[in-house]
């Protein structure tokens, strides 16, 4: 419980106000006698205020009674807890808990708790930790600061719980994907070999030949998708020391050569801004190539005709990490989609244009290398993917 000290009731022009250094606790409170019934009515008013969720929600309690009479010498000695409980509706349901309170005046003396007991279950619980934190806050902060602090804590809590849900979702999906991928591998190998056998034994002028070639191409596409699923399913960082080293600049050059046709056909400017002497990244060069190929291909796909078409590639060292940004001036990502882009099978591309696995594979590979990827996007302005990769093997971005 937080002790905010003795609360004095002051008589001011027939208006009685209860204040402490932080809150106005009660106003227009007139007592001629303290009865259990009166306390119950005060308490029910408190309960009503508790569920008040207005923007200017007040951490204190305002109690208005019908009669305002001059009263002298009344004192509320109470231990008071003010807090805002998170609610599904949003930030801050003001809630208060009066505990161990005695209100004494002319007439009867009833403890506040007794009065509260007469009411239905208030329907909330304050945990010990919450109260401890509240105590610390109240001691340290002004009311505005308290609000701000609570808002920040609440947002943090919300984002952490979202992250937890996301991690759990990916783990479940990963397990499922790995199971499916393994089960599909054998039949796919069968189909691939059966088709190749048939094609091999089809005469060159047989019109079924090209169809069998198409069938082989399609089954290879399935194999590629399943292979990506297996990469994605490795959600945990592989505990290994990378023996190999990948050179960032040469990876990007290879990718740009690979995409050179599309880059020049779409008239896209590639703007490189690398810091000097970027060290090699410990890791699998092919996988790193897969990461940046996916990011640059996505950037190209996001550029719309008529727009300023630029892809910015930036690289610099930040402490023990290589920080890479792949940014485009394209259509951007809707805020609602931003949290889903790393989910497997999520795609905004037209049917048949993307498997929805690209970014989930990218994020798996980066995780495998102990790194981290984030995305910032402004619809209509463009998107920036930021990648952090450890420069020494065994290092890891603190993901918390």
């Amino acid at each position, binding site marked *: 419980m937080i002790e905010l000290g003795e609360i004095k009731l002051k008589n001011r022009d027939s208006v009685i106000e209860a204040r402490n250094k932080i809150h106005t606790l009660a106003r227009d409170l007139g007592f001629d006698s303290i009865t259990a019934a009166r306390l119950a009515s005060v308490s029910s008013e408190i309960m009503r205020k508790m569920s008040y969720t207005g923007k200017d929600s007040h951490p204190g309690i305002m109690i208005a009674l019908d009669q305002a009479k001059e009263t002298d010498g009344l004192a509320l000695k109470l231990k008071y807890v003010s807090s805002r409980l998170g609610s599904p509706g949003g930030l801050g349901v003001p809630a208060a808990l009066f505990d161990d309170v005695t209100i004494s005046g002319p007439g009867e003396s009833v403890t506040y708790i007794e009065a509260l007991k007469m009411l239905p279950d208030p329907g909330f619980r304050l945990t010990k930790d919450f109260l401890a934190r509240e105590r610390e806050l109240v001691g340290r902060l002004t009311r505005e600061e308290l609000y701000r602090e609570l808002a920040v804590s609440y947002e943090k809590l919300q984002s952490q719980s979202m992250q937890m849900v996301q991690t759990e979702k990916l783990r479940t999906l990963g397990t499922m994907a790995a199971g499916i991928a393994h089960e599909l*591998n*054998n039949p796919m190998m*069968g189909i691939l*070999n*059966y088709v190749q056998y048939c094609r091999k034994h089809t005469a060159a002028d047989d019109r079924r030949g090209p169809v069998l070639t198409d069938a082989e191409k399609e089954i290879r596409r399935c194999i590629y998708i399943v292979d990506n699923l297996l990469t994605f399913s490795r959600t945990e960082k592989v505990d290994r020391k990378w023996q190999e080293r990948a050179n960032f600049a040469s990876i990007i050059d290879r990718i740009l050569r690979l995409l050179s046709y599309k880059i020049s056909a779409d008239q896209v400017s590639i703007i490189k801004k690398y810091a000097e002497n970027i060290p090699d990244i410990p890791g699998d060069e092919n996988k790193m190539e897969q990461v940046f190929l996916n990011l640059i291909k996505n950037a190209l796909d996001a550029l719309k005709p008529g727009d300023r078409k630029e892809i910015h590639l930036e690289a610099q060292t930040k402490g023990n990490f290589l920080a890479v940004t792949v940014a485009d001036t394209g259509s951007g990502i809707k805020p609602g989609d931003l949290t889903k882009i790393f989910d497997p099978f999520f795609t905004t591309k037209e049917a048949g244009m993307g498997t929805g696995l690209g970014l989930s594979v990218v994020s798996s590979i980066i995780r495998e290398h102990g790194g981290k990827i984030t995305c910032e996007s402004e619809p209509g302005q463009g998107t920036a993917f930021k990648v952090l990769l450890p420069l020494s093997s065994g290092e890891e971005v603190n993901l918390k």
Partner: protein
Amino acid sequence: MNKRILVIDDDEAIRKSFLLALEDTSYRVDAVESGEKGIEKVTDTGYDLVFLDLKMPGLNGVQTLKRLREMDAKVPVYIVTAFHKEFFKDLKLLSEDDIAFDLLRKPIGSDEIVLLTESILRKEQ
């Protein structure tokens, strides 16, 4: 004499894949559906190359390989796998015990099967 190849895999699609791919080569290919039958085959007939599945009912790939090596320390064994995590530890132990094998990642097509087989068996000559 024609070289002999043994395929041990519980999945018919995989056995057939190897049989079809190697049909027009000079190699003699046998295919069996379990580790136990594979051991029997190796006991009866000598082989120059074995393609072995990892995940099988009864004797799994790792156990089969151990038995095979007791009979024939030299025959090249290619474990054909889609990388089953649960066997990684055992495979690592095998290599620590100097039990030789190679890994071949599923799925593989007929051209790769033929190329690989030819290169291994040529090397073995």
